[in-house]
């Protein structure tokens, strides 16, 4: 199998796992916990490496994931004292743990290849090169199988506890009153997030993990109001971003992680602007349409006269008298007049304007 194929495969499976993990974080409004975890696992990875002397040992992954949970626990501990407001505790704890990790690395790993780049954007291509052999058969890269295992874990958890997760995500108090244990569930979930972060760390680095855990679910959040479609959408967007990112990275001859993160972010931006009904641009356009429609109606009402039924009430009006009566700006007035003429709702007779039958139907349909 070619290198590009495996790079893409690792990118895809990482993206899907992260997007699934992130959906709950976004729904629960704690998306940035992933940023905290992705940095706080560093001391765990380094201690694990010092103890096990093997960067891909499963024990290391568990140890590092435990560090992620430790961070969550410390944050909860500080929050419980109610002495620190908002998200400050998260920032304080993860930066302190990351500092510890950097100092540990600077003291102990100076002669080991522990590249700074790995922390930030990982290296998908290198990860794709490290393959596992089974007998004589080349099974593909280790990173792929590690992520596949993580994905299986996450999927099993989601499928088993879908109902509970849904309840917990949207109404924690209700879940508690029904006898579920949302706090425990939440901790297990953050444990899964930690495991995903750590197993993706070497291939993807912290930037990609955070980007993929937040951007696709955030985009999906704007596309739907239901949990199941949201999971689907975030997987779709994650897959699309990794394909685009790997392609761009291949052409620029750089590690694809940065491009994937950027692609995921841009997909979000596209959705935020153009999502039907929800998008910023779509809503702006809708508002503009509504506004001009109100102007047209007001103009037609002026021409139709005050009584509803009597067709005789309509009198031709000069544009100047109409303009004085509506008291809009000249530009608004002319635009509305133009649109009404174009749609044949009013007629021009010499210097005067007259409402047509169509215009009368239109204004009555909408107003009465």
């Amino acid at each position: 199998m070619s290198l590009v194929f495996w790079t893409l495969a690792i990118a895809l499976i990482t993206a899907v796992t992260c997007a699934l993990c992130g959906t709950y974080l976004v729904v629960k409004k704690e998306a940035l916990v992933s940023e905290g975890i992705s940095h706080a696992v560093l001391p765990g990875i380094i201690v694990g490496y010092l103890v096990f002397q093997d960067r891909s040992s499963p024990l290391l992954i568990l140890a590092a994931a435990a560090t992620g949970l430790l961070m969550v626990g410390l944050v909860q501990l500080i929050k419980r004292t109610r002495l620190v407001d908002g998200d400050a505790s998260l920032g304080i704890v993860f930066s302190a743990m990351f500092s510890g990790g950097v100092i540990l690395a600077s003291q102990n790993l100076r002669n080991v290849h522990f590249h700074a780049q790995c922390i930030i954007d990982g290296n998908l291509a290198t990860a794709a090169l490290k393959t596992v052999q089974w007998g004589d058969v080349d099974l593909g890269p280790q990173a792929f199988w590690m992520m596949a295992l993580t994905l299986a874990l996450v999927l099993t958890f989601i499928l088993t506890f879908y109902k509970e997760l849904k309840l917990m995500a949207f109404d924690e108090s209700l879940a508690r009153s029904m006898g579920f244990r949302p706090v425990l569930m939440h901790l297990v979930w953050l444990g899964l997030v930690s495991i995903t972060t750590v197993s993706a760390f070497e291939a993807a680095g912290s930037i990609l993990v955070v980007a993929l855990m937040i951007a696709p679910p955030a985009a999906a959040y704007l596309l739907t109001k239901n949990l199941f479609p949201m999971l689907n959408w975030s997987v779709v967007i994650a897959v699309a971003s990794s394909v685009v990112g790997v392609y761009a990275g291949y052409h620029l001859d750089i590690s694809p992680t940065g491009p994937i993160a950027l692609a995921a972010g841009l997909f979000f931006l596209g959705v935020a602007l153009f999502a039907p009904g929800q998008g910023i641009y779509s809503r702006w356009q809708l508002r503009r349409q509504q506004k001009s429609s109100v102007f047209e109606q007001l103009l037609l009402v002026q021409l139709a006269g005050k009584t509803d039924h009597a067709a005789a009430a309509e009198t031709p009006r000069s544009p100047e008298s109409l303009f004085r009566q509506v008291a809009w700006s000249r530009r608004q007035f002319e635009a509305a007049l133009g649109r009404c003429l174009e749609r044949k709702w009013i007629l021009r007779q010499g210097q005067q304007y007259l409402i047509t039958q169509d215009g009368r139907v239109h204004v009555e349909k909408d107003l009465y």
Partner: protein
Amino acid sequence: MLMIELLTDYTFRTVLLGTAMIGAVSGALGCFAYLRRQSLIGDVVSHSSLFGVMLFFLASYWLTGQGSKSLVVLIPGAICAGTAALLLTRTVVQRTRLKQDSSLGVMLAIFFGAGIVLLRWVQRVDPPIPGRRGLEDYLFGMAAAMTQDDLWMIGILGFLAILVMLLLWKELKVYTFDPLFSHSLGYRTAKLDTLLVMILVVGIVIGIQSVGVVLMIALLITPASAARQWTRRLGTMVILASLTGAVCGLVGSVISATYSHVPTGPVIVLASTLIFVVSLMLAPGRGIVSRMLHRSKLMSTIRQPNAGGDLP
């Protein structure tokens, strides 16, 4: 090295002064981020600034044929990108259903992703861009590499940010604690918000040089969170946070200069975390220790026979 030797060393004095100034400025401004419950913007701004840094580096290369790594070029870029990221976050929060933290996270993906793409491209592109070596230091911070020019840049920008804060003290104070009230007083809240965002961004980007993008958030909020434990007044809090930041900057540079191979940034962060933990424990009236004392006193009162007087 001995203390005396250190203090007479020119390079070290530059670093000492730089980290202390950065600590003081970001500590003071951090109070506003902390009180507005926007602590994590520090993280997003510092990461996002990489994009602006890379754009301005490339612009300096296209204009002069030599990529510049001087802070005079890079910091304006960082300020532009950081401000853009925060304003975009504000737009997304105001105009869509998405909440603050997810919007911040998405901006992180866009701006930091774009910054990393540019950085890796600049490092790989052929023919090589002159001056591209060492750009990565921006990510992790190189306090020891601070120059006299950098010091001036940090000093002037920090001074300007603090000056704006002091001039608009009353307005910013009201806006921070009660945005609706400040709006009802007739303040231009949208403009105030943009201004506050801009001075915060300035406070953040001048510090990245010393601790790197990941740890900048600690310089911003850890001193503020520690200071908050000791006071209920904004003025006192800003002064305390500023002092904490400065002291931690000094401690960090002294320790990292004394021991070999200890990076400055993490030491600064750990020093301020220590002060934070101590504050959490010992703060008078609300600290954990004083709370426990209070509770044990209450418990002993309750345990006394006939504690509440006779029942009616």
